[in-house]
């Protein structure tokens, strides 16, 4: 009998795991299970180009031929209900069983939903899947008043798109520092100013108290400050929660996601995890659940290698980007307030980079419209670069030349 490896979740982590199993020479059976109807697709474009009117279909991670060529059994529209570890079987929602020797949990995360009166009204939207993006794009083309709940990256990307389409947009944010969790305070403030200049109305330190509807459709948002904001469409972007139900049921240790070690192993033998659902110690020694594509992909690759007996620890370095207005912003490594910040370029110029150093070691960078700097910084962070912060600030220095 050939060995079978099942991958639950056909997202970037799951597909990377399947690809890697094959590229590293695994000749057994690979079953890739997706609970969505389409070919596995890229999620980052969903909140960017994917919201443009008439956008055509999701961007596939691989074309259809890839899966047959690589002999990867892709099963779409398939939900796994549980793992029977003792009998080595996956139980699918229709009751059918799939014998499996090992499992990689790539079950991802789901949007955190608001639990306030009116939350079920039509026009209260979230953004995570391709279907979500289609619905949102359709609304954006025909509504006037848009309210964004949560000014993080997703909220800001949708706000930018809505303004570009001529909608009146108000964002409400629970904290006093919109975008700062993702970008740090300096870059967060810059980006918010761009939004404000382009007509975004912003309410800080404010939450939703309820949604007000008419004929089942949302019409207004009432805030905790007592304000009533007109709304034909609400986009809620208040984070995600890990999809850990299957893991829990299988007795896998869970603590803000599925807890995995450096080899992507869970607490249960032969069960591995990767991607947004996984909680792992990162490059900086911090245990956390990463919610970015770069880490998800790396964990997928490394889980596959580990399952094949390659003994290399996965210690992902976070990396993410956002494209808004005329700005490409890249966030690399760990950025934390209270670390030494070196700056290259003037913030006002719209083309600059910030470097975050701790104990003289470069840990993170935020780079705005400076891909070359970002590219150099990425390598320096990975190499644990320590040196004169003046070199980082000096625009005459090509960071790529500092690498060892």
């Amino acid at each position, binding site marked *: 009998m050939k060995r079978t490896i099942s991958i639950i979740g056909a997202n*970037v982590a799951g597909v990377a795991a399947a690809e890697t199993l094959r590229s590293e020479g695994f000749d057994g059976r690979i079953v890739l299970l997706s609970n969505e109807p389409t070919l596995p697709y890229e999620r980052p474009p969903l909140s960017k180009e994917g919201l443009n009117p008439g956008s055509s279909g999701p961007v596939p991670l*691989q074309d259809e031929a890839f899966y047959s060529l690589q002999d990867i059994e892709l099963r779409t529209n398939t939900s796994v209900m549980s793992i029977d570890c003792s009998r080595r079987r996956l139980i699918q929602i229709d009751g059918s069983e799939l014998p499996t020797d090992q499992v990689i949990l790539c079950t991802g995360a789901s949007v955190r939903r608001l639990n306030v009166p009116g939350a079920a009204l039509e026009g209260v939207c979230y953004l995570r899947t391709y279907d979500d993006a289609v619905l949102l794009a359709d609304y954006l083309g025909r509504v006037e008043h848009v309210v964004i709940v949560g000014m993080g990256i997703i909220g800001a990307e949708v706000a930018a798109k809505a303004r570009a389409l001529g909608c009146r947009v108000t964002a409400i944010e629970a904290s006093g520092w919109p975008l700062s969790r993702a970008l740090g305070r300096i870059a967060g403030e810059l980006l918010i100013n761009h939004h404000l200049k382009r007509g975004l109305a912003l309410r800080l330190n404010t939450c939703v108290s309820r949604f007000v509807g008419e004929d089942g459709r949302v019409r207004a948002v009432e805030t905790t400050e007592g304000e009533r904001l007109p709304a034909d469409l609400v986009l809620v972007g208040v984070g995600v929660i890990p999809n850990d139900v299957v893991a829990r049921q299988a007795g896998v240790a869970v603590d803000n996601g599925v807890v995995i070690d450096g080899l992507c192993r869970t607490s249960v033998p032969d069960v591995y995890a990767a991607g947004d659902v996984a909680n792992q110690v990162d490059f900086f020694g911090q245990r956390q659940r990463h919610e970015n594509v*770069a880490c998800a992909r790396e964990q997928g690759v490394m889980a596959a290698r580990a399952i094949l007996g390659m003994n290399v620890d996965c210690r992902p370095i976070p990396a993410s980007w956002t494209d808004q207005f005329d700005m490409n912003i890249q966030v690399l490594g760990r950025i934390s307030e209270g670390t030494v910040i070196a700056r290259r370029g003037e913030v006002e110029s719209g083309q600059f980079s910030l470097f975050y150093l701790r104990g003289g070691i470069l840990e993170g960078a935020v780079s705005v419209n400076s891909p070359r700097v970002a590219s150099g910084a990425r390598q320096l962070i990975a190499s644990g670069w320590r040196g004169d912060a003046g070199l980082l600030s000096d625009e005459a220095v090509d960071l790529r030349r500092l*690498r060892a």
Partner: protein
Amino acid sequence: MNETMSNESPVRLCSVHEVEPDFPLPVVIEGMPPIAVYRIQDQFYATDNLCTHGQALLTDGCQQEGIIECPLHGGAFDIRSGQPTASPCRVVLKTYPVLQDGDDLFIASVAD
């Protein structure tokens, strides 16, 4: 000059000394897409400079020997073949044959 290029006039890219190992040179030629010129040891190569995935110039990225990494999303290509070697890059990068004549580097002008 190479005979196979006889139908099209070769286009000058740059001088040999302008291209350092691991530091690709961006070259803009009228009527052509932006070009990246690479040196790997003592050999020279050319590809399109725009990443096939996102709107990025590969010459802003990091070259390590025969691999160029895109500066935006971490994808990468084999410089010699144009084959993607790291996701999210999937589409093959166009490569151009490079000719050396003394201190100068040329590619064939490409109609398509």
